[in-house]
């Protein structure tokens, strides 16, 4: 897995969980805790970097271990994956992980 940036709020991607949906050119997956591999972040974006001041509102809690994740595999071949939790967004590049997700949904 390539990593260009790691953030302390990166969700723990250590345990496999539920795959609920797939859609679009890639796969979009929700995971109650996650996906069977350790992952590190490539690009981490949270609401503070959004166009608005959304992040600062109290209702926007940071990602926590008991929150669901949404994983969007943008491109299975390149392993381009976005992970969403709470108001956070992380982008990773992991072809093996993308392949495992694709296999799980197939």
């Amino acid at each position, binding site marked *: 897995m390539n990593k260009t940036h790691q953030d302390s709020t990166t969700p723990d991607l250590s345990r496999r969980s539920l795959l*609920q*949906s797939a859609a679009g050119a890639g796969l*979009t997956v*929700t995971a109650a805790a996650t996906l069977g591999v350790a992952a590190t972040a490539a690009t981490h*974006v*949270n*609401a503070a*970097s*959004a*166009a*608005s*001041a*959304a*992040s*600062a*509102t*109290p*209702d*926007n809690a940071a990602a926590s271990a008991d929150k*669901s*994740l*949404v994983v*969007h595999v943008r491109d299975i071949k390149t392993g381009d994956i*976005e992970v*969403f*939790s*709470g*108001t*956070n*967004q992380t982008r990773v590049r992991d072809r093996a992980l993308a392949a495992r997700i694709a296999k799980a949904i197939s």
Partner: protein
Amino acid sequence: MSSHREAPEISKDPVADSTDVYAFVSPDKPGTVTLIANYIPLQGPAAGPNFYEFGDDVLYEIHIDNNGDGRADVSYQFRFSTHVADPGTFLYNVGPIESLTSANWNRRQSYSVSENGKVLASGLNCPPCNIGPLSTPNYASLAATAVHNLSNGVAVFAGQRADAFYVDLGAIFDLGDLRPFENLHAQYGLNAFSGPAAGVNAVNHLNVHSIAIQVPISALTRSGHPTIGVWTTASRQRVSLWDADGGTTVNSGPFRQVSRLGNPLVNEVLIPVGKKDQWNSLPPSDDKSFASYVTQPGLAGLLPALYPGVFPNLAALSSSGKPRADLEAILLTGIPSGIIPGFQNFTGDTLADMLRLNTSIAPTAPDKQSIYGLLGGDAGGFPNGRRVTDDVVAIELRAVAGVTYALVDKSFTPDAAANKLTDGLTPASVSSPALSQFPYLGTPYSGFNNPS
């Protein structure tokens, strides 16, 4: 209009679709400004059993730029929460709702308001929708209790209101028909109209959901710089996923802007359809890339074609290719001093669509107001901010038709018809009149009586 369903994508997401923004020095509290952002367009009042409500999953914001860079210096954020007392009933209410704490009210909303991320208040009650004489008796007084006075002179209200905008949508979007002049329309050889007709207010008897905040002027302006730029945005989290097992929608990721509104009609009429949703996603500071649609407006070319022989001077101006510096000033920079004697709301060279309000100009007394605002010699109205009753359709039609170009090019003579353009409506076309106090928008139409 002025921004109801103005872009293809946001038209499918009414909960996040802004319809109008108002900004004016409060006539009854001139040390404050009132900022109003309306959402959820074209609400039929008889909307039971699930009456309209704000989106719990939408971040609503009202922004103020006070240094002219097209970026927010002060932002107010509004987040809503829906509460269901008894999920076992299909009813919105199980008896008359006579107070905001009524046990008869089954599905209600509250909200928090924050300033630049700092919570000012939370748990503020919205009023219910106006249902009818049995469910919401004494609606006006009930809704008045949903005006919340916060610390530091701030007041807020969020809930259903009558749409104060007036526009003949049905005619205007029938190939630019203005009913009072439709006998002059080219009519494509169809001979549909034989004479002028009265305008029809397409949004009369329809409601919106309003977010209104009244703030001391001193909290929004910088010393010596009384003009502010105002706009609203709605944002959604990047991911929205229908969880069929849970019967709910899962939202995740950072918020991204999906709706924006400053000046009325800009995205609606000036921005081309292929760029409207992109425009909605960007801040005013990025509007330089859209400036040509303001300075070379397609509508200015259409009017002479739709009304042959009526706008020869406008046709010549449009075909000359001269940029419309007048529209750029009105909509993108504010009007510099020296153009209109004694008036300016210029915020600098940054091209940004914001509703600009010079807060140093006192409210115009009601008997001195012109619904045509600055075009009517009334500096208390649009485009110096926007009051609830301003006829922004006529003002912008007249401006696009060339009335204001003469201000920047003394050699230009506006066509005689330009200063008479109207869709035939006035504030009297709104059945629920504006209030004289905050939140100023009229009592929403009840489902019992509308339609009737």
